[in-house]
Structure formats: C-alpha cells, structure tokens
C-alpha cells in the first residue's frame, strides 16, 4: 500500500511543480516527474510476488504466478511518447529563450486578454 501512496505523492510533486514554478525548465521537469509517476503506477499494478515470464512450457512446469506482459509493453510505449513530448518542449524552451532572453514565465507574457 505504501508504494502506491508514494507513487501518488510523486505525481502530486510533479503537478505541483507544473502549477507553481516560474521557470520553464522546472515546469518541464515537473511534467517528466508526473509522467513517470503514472508509468511507475502502471508497473506497480502489474507486479506479482514471485512472478515469472509468461513463456509456455510443457505441463510439469507451471507458469501460474505469471506476470502480465501487457502493462510493460504499454509503459514502454508511454515512455517513448513522453520522450518525444519532452524533447519537443525542451526545444521550444530553447527557442523561447532565444526570443525573450529569459526562462521566467512571469516575463514571457505577451499574450493575454
């Protein structure tokens, strides 16, 4: 149970960073933390005590405490998507720094209304 709570805490830390930080890079880091909290949660859900890989073997060997491989595949996909988004946002932050000369979102506010 405690691991799930820690996972939730990690997610909240990420969301808190996104909402309250003023530095673009810190916002991106917050997003990465929140994202990996979700991935971690998915892996935890799939965890089996004493589990083994789901490879079929002839009857005397049982694959009973089998680990469901699907969540791992999904998390892998989610990580790849996350990397693409992160790379894109870091590139964006660099271009913003070139134009505005700052990472501070309080000073990057030309759009309003």
């Amino acid at each position, binding site marked *: 149970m405690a691991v799930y709570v820690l996972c939730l805490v990690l997610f909240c830390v990420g969301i808190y960073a996104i909402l309250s930080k003023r530095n673009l890079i810190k916002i991106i880091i917050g997003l990465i933390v929140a994202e990996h909290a979700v991935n971690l949660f998915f892996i935890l859900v799939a965890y089996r005590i004493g589990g083994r890989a789901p490879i079929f073997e002839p009857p005397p060997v049982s694959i009973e405490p089998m680990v469901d491989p699907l969540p791992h595949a999904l998390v892998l996909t989610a990580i790849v998507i996350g990397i693409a988004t992160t790379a894109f946002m870091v590139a964006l932050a660099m271009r913003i720094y070139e*134009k505005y000369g700052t990472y501070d979102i309080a000073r990057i506010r030309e*759009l309003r209304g």
Partner: protein
Amino acid sequence: MMPTSPVIPLFVAVPLAGAFAIALLGKKTRIIPNGMALIVTGGLIAFSIIAMRMFSLFGVHTYKLGAWPAPFGIVMVLDGLTAFMLFTVSLIAFLVILFSISYMERYSGRWQFYTLFLLMVAGMNGVIVTGDMFNLFVFLEVAAVASYALVAFGTEKHELEAAFKYAVMGSVGSLFVLLAIVWLYSYTSTLNMADMALALQAAGSTRVALVTGVLLLTGFALKAAIVPFHAWLPDAHPSAPAPISAMLSGVLIKALGVYAICRVFYSVLGVSPQLSMLLMVLGVVSMSVGVLLALRQWDLKRLLAYSSISQIGYIMLGIGIGTPLGFMAALFHLFNHSVFKSLLFLGSGAVEYATGTRDLREMGGLGKRMKLTSAAMLSGSMSVAGIPPFAGFWSKLLIIVAAVQAGYYWFAIIAVVASMLTLSYVMRIMRYGFLGELREKWAGVREVPFMMKLSLGLLALICILGGLLLLPGAREFFLTQAARTFSVGTQLASRILGGV
C-alpha cells in the same frame, strides 16, 4: 458474424504514408507536398463516404489488426458516429489544404508543414476509428504532439509562447487520460473497449467508473477546451498559421475532446443522470463564458477562438440532454461548427494575407476590395450567429428545442441569450472589418489568390446549403444513424464482441 472491412485501417495508414512520403521526397520540389496532401485528404473524403455507405447497408464493421481475435488483438471499429466524424475531419482537412497551397507560400519549410498536418490527420482518424483504450491514448498523443508543433510553426515570440502553454496543458490532459486507462486496465484486465464495457457492466461497480470517469472527463475536457480548462485555447488557436487555426478549432478539439468524451462515456463507462447533468452544466458555462469573453476582443482570431469555446458549449449541452433529438442536434452543430469556424479562421487568414493585420480597429471597408472574402465571412458569421436559413440556425434551433422538450427551460433560455450575444460579436467583425468606408492605407489591397477563394467559396456554400441535410433521406444517411450510436450506448459492446 460481424462484417470486417479493409477500408477502416486506411484512414490511419494513408495519411501516415503520405506524411512520410512528403518528408522523404518533398524537400526540393513544391509539387510533391502540395499534390500529395491534396490527393491524400481528397482520398480520405472518398473513403469516408464509402464508410458511411457501408455502415448504412451492413451496420457495424470491425477490422482486426494482424488478424488477432478481438479481446486480445487491436480492433478498429466503424459505426455511425465514427463514419460521421471521419467525413467531417476529411472534408475540413481537404478544404484547409486547398487554402494552404497559396497561403503557405510565405513560410519556409512547407514540406514540414504538410508532414505535420498529415500526421495530425492520421492521429485524429486513429482516435476516431480505434476500438482499443490504449490506442486511443497513443493516437491522441500523435495528433496532440503534431498540433503543438504546428502552433509553433511560425517560430516567432507569440507562437512559441502559445505553443509552450498548449504543450504543457495538453500533456497534463494526456497524463490524466493515461492514469484513467491504468485504473481501468487494472480493474477489468482488458483494453478492448467493448470487452471493457462488458466487464464493467458485469462487475456493476460504479466506484471505479466514477474515479476513472472524473479523470477521463478532466483529460478530454482539457483537449476540448471546455470552460474551466480553456485557458490555452485563446492563445494557441490565434497564434498558429490560419489553416492550422482552422484545423484546430474546426476539428481537432472535437475529435480529441468531444468525440473522445462521447465514445468513452457512451460506449464504455455508461452514462448516469449525474454525468448528463455535469455535461450540460459544463456546456452552459462554456457557452456563456466564451461568448462574454469574445465580446471584448479586438484581435479577430482571438475573438474567433473564444467563439469556439462558446460553440463547443452548445455541442456539450446537446449531448448532455440525452434525447435522440439532442444527440442529432449536437452532431449537426458539431458538423456546422467545423464548417463555419474553419471558414471564419480561413477568412481571417485571407485578411491577414492581404493586409498583414488581425486587429479589427485597424481594418475597415475591406469588403470593397475583397468581395468574395467578405461575402464568405458574412455567410460564416450568419451561420455562427444562427440566422435563418444558414446551417447554424437549424442546429442551434434543434438544440434549444431538445432542451425545452426535455424540460431544461433555464438551459434553453441561456442558449438563446448566448446566441443573441453571438450575433453582436459577429456583427462587430462585419462592421469594423468589412463594411463602412475603405481606409486610405488599404486602397492597394487586392483579393486573395484563386485557390484561397475556391476554398472559402466552397465552405460558404456548405454554410448556406447545410440546412438541407435535415431533409428526409439526407438526414437519415448523415445524422440519424450517427446519433443512434448514443442510444445503443454500451450495448454496442455485446454486438461487437458477439460477432467475433
């Protein structure tokens, strides 16, 4: 035996192939990106008409990727709502590409534009056709990441700022969706939407459905820019190049937001009266906040962006009402909004192309120099304001009638008032932008090139004639069979799996 159809995966495969072909071959020439994008989107319109026809003849179709049987492999599903959304997306994408051929001349890196554009279309079509929860997330991200990049396409100050804001909000939205999918998977041990719906029904537990419902609604509402989650839209949509504004406001927020909400709640989780009420309240709040904020905008595209928020509110209200008339009205308004909001954004792009400004205070009398753009903008404005006989009038009328029939008098009254306020802001576009005396400095302004005029003219024609879709025959083929998907609801699941 459920009919299978090889047309369904083409909706994703063709734009994906087009995107990569443009990226590989289109760097040097101008013909390849333009021609390829036109052929791909034109082909998608043809496929979507075939898909509608197939559905009306044979009912729900599925396609199993890699021929794996249904609850284990990935399934794509074609039902009425899917066919309707595919047609809307393809139609708008084609007309927007037609417009961008001339408009994008000013930008460098056109092949990148078309690659990202087709990737976005592939993502949206994927979200629409998929029958698998995790694929929904993957395609959602494909479309979203492509759209972040397209918002930043100009790489000027404002574009970058808006794109960053949009990317952060969009990624948080996707995170909520992913979290909800994790919950649903760990509860039902399946990702197939139909199988998941059956498992949830069998378990009969509403608590998991409630938690995931809240997470999914938050995630998709962020994508659809429904009011408490709308902050990114008025920055992102105006900052993008005009064709992209038209795509984002016209179809992206509907495919990733409204359609995903409909699919997840009506076909998988099931709808409770509280959820319907919540959708209606969100709709009414969106429609009134959007319209009030639009009233005080002077930037033409920003005004239109707020107007999108307000019109999405009408669609959500129609869906929330939950009667067959409400669903049909909501879908008809969704189609109409796609058409007239793309028209208005493309029109604002044409004005920007000719004059270089989007500020209504600097315009004036442009109608004298740009006759066709002005006429097209007028028909789009009349449609959004709901003036008969333009298409927007009929769909708004049906939504209000549905609200009255279902006994939600207050919502109907708010919808009527919001519609009047809409008229006042669109009249402002016409009065400051196109009517009145021509200003000295715009004396040399010329009408936009032929391709842009063609696209504007076709969209205006659909705005004027759209009401004809309500005639018997056309209505049955186009709207009713799509609206029936809602009434079938989670029963769809047993049909899909039953046939496999």
